[in-house]
């Protein structure tokens, strides 16, 4: 019964999505306000039916309804309640439903927060979301139905992959999807503007808070994924350049470029083409990521199933979305305004450099991720691209970014001079070098990379703080939220950089064999292995090790890493034990039992400053949210007429002149 009801909800949602994709658009074209007015109720209907379907699926999981094939594959009666709920999105079908739910939630948010948009524009935005929803609902219903029956019903489920039985995984996918899908809103705004044919700075101002919010969610999702990999996979790594990680990282890179390009378009009217393209690109990369992960062309923990029809469907959908959007763009591009001119040294140029480097980094990650697929398709052999490729090139491409970030806020729009920037930032640059070296000497890190990292980080943090101080002095109050957000996010890069440079250059890792009572010394810490004892969990049995850590003869903590065996699948899992700290993590994982005397292989890590990696990400995402809440995005009036034209007159001759209209 529950399954049928869920099925019905999905089909009803699909029908509403089709209507939402057509009716308001038709109404906007014919200037028929009644048809335009259907957009909001249709959106709410779409959301309510999708939400009900999602709740029904959740109920099926809570009640252990193993007559649903999806529940039988993803859950088990021994699974604790919290994990039964998160198991809803633990597999392909459910995570797709979550995708659609997030999309409809964003759409509902548009109806709530963008009431002041012109009705036809809002109708077009919602219609584009309707079309995207149609594609995903078709995909869900025809290739990945979570409500498919299993006949006869299974006596018990085959359990959720133990790797996914973890608190981090309860929130990681929803965050990541919220970010992915959020770029659909930026995309919808761009397409709506293209359809409208009247593309001015106004639409950028409308779409900026949405883009910033989506970017922040995506940052949160990626950071959570990295944190989860760190403690759950038992290898202590925080980023592996795994194709699936890359799939989520590419929209982030495009999104980062987009929020900076939007800044130029909103303030100066320049880069409109580029902003539109980036909005299309960010969402396309979200779709590409979904394709790569879901089609099974990649091998990974995330590739739930290798079903070719799914891959082909997403590929076609990707083709329609990207092809359609680019076609529309091609028709409109000649009529787009190109904005005001700017000098060689100006804030526009600095933001352009940001965009160029982010675009290069994106191209680099895309190539590295797709190259093995292309090589395989062309019969060049089976190749994999290793992490050194990515980390080397990424470091090289991001170093200039670190260098120019503090200049950004200080620089003037249109035209600036070296003398001005030098006056503002030269003292900070000198202090950064000294303070960075001092910090490295006192806090840790070694080698050229750590030197560059510490100096770069100090430069970013001091530069941002200096800007904050200047703003407060000049205004005698806090700067607007968008500026505070920017300062926090830029400081976040610095904090992240400290974490990376220290942990990568002076982290200690040791794999060794220890018999009970034996100990080993790592940096100033001594680890004593006290053997293992059996332990029992709700759905697993474990061997729990006991490792006493001491420093200067005093015990600090006892770590209890586990080797678990999950009962339903028989799968063995390593559960690392971590003593976290702001300046270092102590990390112990059990390898395997080596002999009858109780000796084990152990993996012992000292990871200095590793938390700063995620702390930096938290700064970035909080900054993004604060910027999204800026007051000026709320004061949207239809009469606002600061379009490009009025600015055009103000353009000064003698500067690198942009093409005329």
């Amino acid at each position: 019964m529950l399954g049928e009801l869920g099925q019905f909800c999905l089909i009803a949602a699909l029908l509403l999505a089709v209507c939402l994709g057509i009716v308001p658009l038709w109404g906007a074209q014919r200037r028929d306000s009644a048809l335009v007015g259907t957009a909001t109720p249709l959106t709410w209907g779409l959301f309510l039916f999708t939400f009900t379907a999602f709740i029904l699926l959740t109920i099926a999981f809570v009640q252990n309804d193993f007559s649903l094939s999806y529940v039988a594959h993803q859950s088990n009666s021994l699974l604790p309640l919290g994990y039964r709920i998160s198991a809803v999105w633990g597999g392909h079908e459910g995570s797709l439903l979550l995708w659609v739910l997030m999309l409809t939630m964003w759409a509902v948010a548009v109806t709530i927060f963008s009431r002041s948009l012109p009705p036809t524009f809002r109708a077009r935005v919602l219609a584009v979301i309707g079309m995207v929803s149609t594609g995903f609902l078709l995909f869900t219903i025809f290739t990945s139905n979570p409500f498919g029956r299993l006949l006869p019903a299974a006596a018990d489920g085959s359990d959720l992959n133990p790797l996914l039985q973890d608190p981090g995984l309860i929130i990681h996918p929803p965050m990541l999807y919220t970010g992915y899908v959020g770029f659909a809103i930026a995309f919808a705004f761009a397409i709506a503007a293209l359809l409208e044919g009247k593309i001015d700075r106004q639409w950028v101002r409308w779409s900026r808070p949405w883009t910033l919010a989506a970017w922040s969610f995506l940052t949160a999702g990626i950071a959570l994924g990295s944190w989860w990999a760190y403690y759950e996979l038992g290898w202590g790594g925080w980023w592996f350049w795994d194709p699936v990680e890359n799939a989520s990282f590419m929209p982030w890179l495009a999104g980062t470029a987009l929020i900076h390009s939007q800044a130029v378009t909103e303030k100066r009217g320049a880069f409109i083409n580029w902003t539109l393209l980036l909005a299309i690109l960010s969402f396309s990369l979200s779709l590409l990521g979904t394709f790569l992960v879901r089609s099974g062309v990649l091998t990974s923990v995330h590739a739930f199933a290798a079903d070719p029809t799914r891959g082909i469907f997403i590929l076609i959908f990707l083709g329609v979305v990207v092809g359609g959007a680019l076609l529309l763009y091609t028709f409109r591009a000649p009529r787009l305004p190109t904005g005001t001119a700017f000098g060689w040294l100006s804030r526009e140029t600095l933001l352009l450099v940001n965009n160029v480097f982010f675009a290069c980094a994106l191209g680099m990650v895309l190539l590295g991720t797709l190259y093995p697929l292309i090589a395989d398709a062309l019969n060049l052999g089976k190749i994999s691209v290793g992490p050194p490729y990515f980390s080397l090139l990424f470091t090289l491409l991001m170093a200039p970014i670190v260098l120019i970030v503090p200049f950004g806020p200080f620089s003037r729009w249109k035209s600036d001079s070296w003398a001005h920037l030098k006056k503002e930032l030269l003292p900070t640059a000198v202090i950064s070098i000294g303070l960075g070296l001092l910090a490295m000497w006192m806090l840790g890190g070694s080698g050229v990379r750590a030197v560059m990292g510490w100096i770069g980080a100090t430069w970013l943090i001091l530069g941002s703080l200096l800007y904050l101080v200047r703003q407060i002095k000049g205004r005698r109050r806090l700067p607007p939220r968008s500026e505070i957000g920017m300062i926090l996010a830029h400081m976040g890069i610095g904090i992240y950089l400290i974490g990376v440079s220290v942990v990568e250059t002076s982290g200690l890792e040791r794999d060794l064999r220890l018999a009970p009572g034996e100990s080993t010394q790592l940096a100033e810490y001594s680890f004593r292995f006290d053997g293992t004892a059996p332990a029992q969990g709700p759905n697993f049995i474990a061997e729990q090790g006991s490792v006493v850590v001491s420093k200067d003869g005093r015990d600090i903590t006892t770590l209890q890493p586990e080797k678990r065996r999950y009962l339903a699948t028989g799968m063995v899992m390593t559960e690392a034990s971590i003593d976290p700290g702001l300046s270092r993590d102590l990390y112990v994982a059990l390898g395997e039992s080596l002999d009858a005397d109780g000796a084990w292989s152990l993996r012992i890590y000292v990871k200095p400053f590793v938390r700063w990696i995620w702390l930096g990400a938290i700064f970035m995402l909080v900054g993004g949210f604060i910027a999204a809440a800026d007051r000026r995005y709320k004061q949207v009036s239809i009469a606002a007429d600061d379009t490009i034209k009025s600015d055009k007159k103000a353009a000064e001759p003698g500067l690198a002149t942009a093409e005329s209209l």
Partner: protein
Amino acid sequence: MTPTRKRRLFAVLFVLLGVGTATGMLVYALSDNALFFYTPTKMAEEQVAAGTKFRLGGMVLPGSVKRDTQSLGVHFVITDNDAEQDVFYEGILPDLFREGQGVIASGILRPDGKFEATQVLAKHDENYMPPEVADALREAGHELPTEPGV
């Protein structure tokens, strides 16, 4: 040339230079870090030379795993049911490493003909067979163990 044109010319040159450098770096880094995947049969066909870095895939031959008693060293044989390759690895093996399971080892071929792995991957799922390994076994004409129900 007008100043505007001059500026444009410089801009174009600058972009070309940038794109050129970027492409050069990209190709260099890619060729340096792209690892080929071989099965033991393929290794013999291609006559892989000692000192070559690559990824070796296949099944762990049942009964072939031998551990050192004092270190974390472990010896095992990777097979695709036609050819075999000796592998040495020092470190902690992944949880799902087991005899008869599909694995992928990355490392280097030693002059003595042994493959020294720096990393061994056995994926996160009990029934998982790395696609490369599955393909290789299929090519060699062997039946794959069917996935139960999934």
